[in-house]
């Protein structure tokens, strides 16, 4: 993306939400334990294509990329993830409710 045309740099920032901090921690811990490298993370993000950059937030792309790498490395399966996500959705309608198992 370096060198491409783009709009003004808006001096925006936000406080990170807990779920974003957790994604960050999962990335750092799993990569430091050797499950993937930063290059693996970036490859997964780049594979998502242009549209993901427009429609997903930063940590949404990260959680998808960490998950992709962890499944590829065999830490857990797509089926395990899917089953767990269904269980979590049944716990409540907000992050706070669903994250408290």
């Amino acid at each position: 993306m370096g060198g491409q045309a783009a709009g003004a740099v808006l001096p925006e920032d936000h406080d990170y939400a807990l779920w974003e901090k957790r994604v960050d921690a999962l990335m750092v811990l799993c990569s430091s334990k050797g499950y993937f490298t930063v290059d693996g993370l970036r490859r997964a993000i780049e594979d998502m294509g242009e549209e993901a950059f427009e429609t997903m937030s930063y940590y949404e792309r990260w959680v998808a990329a960490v998950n992709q790498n962890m499944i590829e490395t065999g830490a857990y399966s797509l089926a395990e993830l899917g089953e767990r996500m269904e269980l979590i959705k049944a716990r409540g309608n907000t992050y706070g409710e669903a994250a408290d198992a």
Partner: protein
Amino acid sequence: MPHDHHEDDFHHSGMSPSGHPYREDDDRPLTYWQTMEIAMREILIEKGILTPAEIARQIDEMDSRSPANGAAVVARAWVDPDFRHRLLNDASEASREMGFDIGPLRLIALENTADTHNIIVCTLCSCYPRNLLGLPPDWYKSRAYRSRVVREPRKVLAEFGVTLPDSTTIRVHDSTADMRYIVLPRRPDGTESMSETELAALVTRDSMIGVGLPKSPD
């Protein structure tokens, strides 16, 4: 109607019109990606790959890192020529000397001088001296900054309120996964009598990214 935009926000998955994430609070509707985070974390804990304590500690460590750490390093370099030399030689080691955990990454300090100004970016993703400065601001990760700063740095600087003489050379440094940069800004004039602690208060985050200058005294 305090929540009249709630539904709308939800359908945009937390994105603002400019492509930046909204703040997501715990009482907002659960999103698909949040559900994935919870699921992944629980599975990794159950399989013994991670512990809850490790995750909590990592979050605490990241929260404790802030631009104040980098400011302390810069101020030390301004008052101690030997330290400045060590910093420019090996910024990771010099930062560790001050008690900051830099991790395995190679950190390189870029010194601004009377005729050269340095700016850092990561055009590929969002590499940032996070172990020293904490997590990057949203704009550092934005498409606009990453695309434009390498092509028209003076225009981008102007948008941050910084105008440099045409005679100043601007160098833009593109970070990589294994190599991070931090800018060592110039010590402002009129600060000769200031203490190291007072000097550190002049050093802003943006001045260590290179899109700002240190504050002036008083």
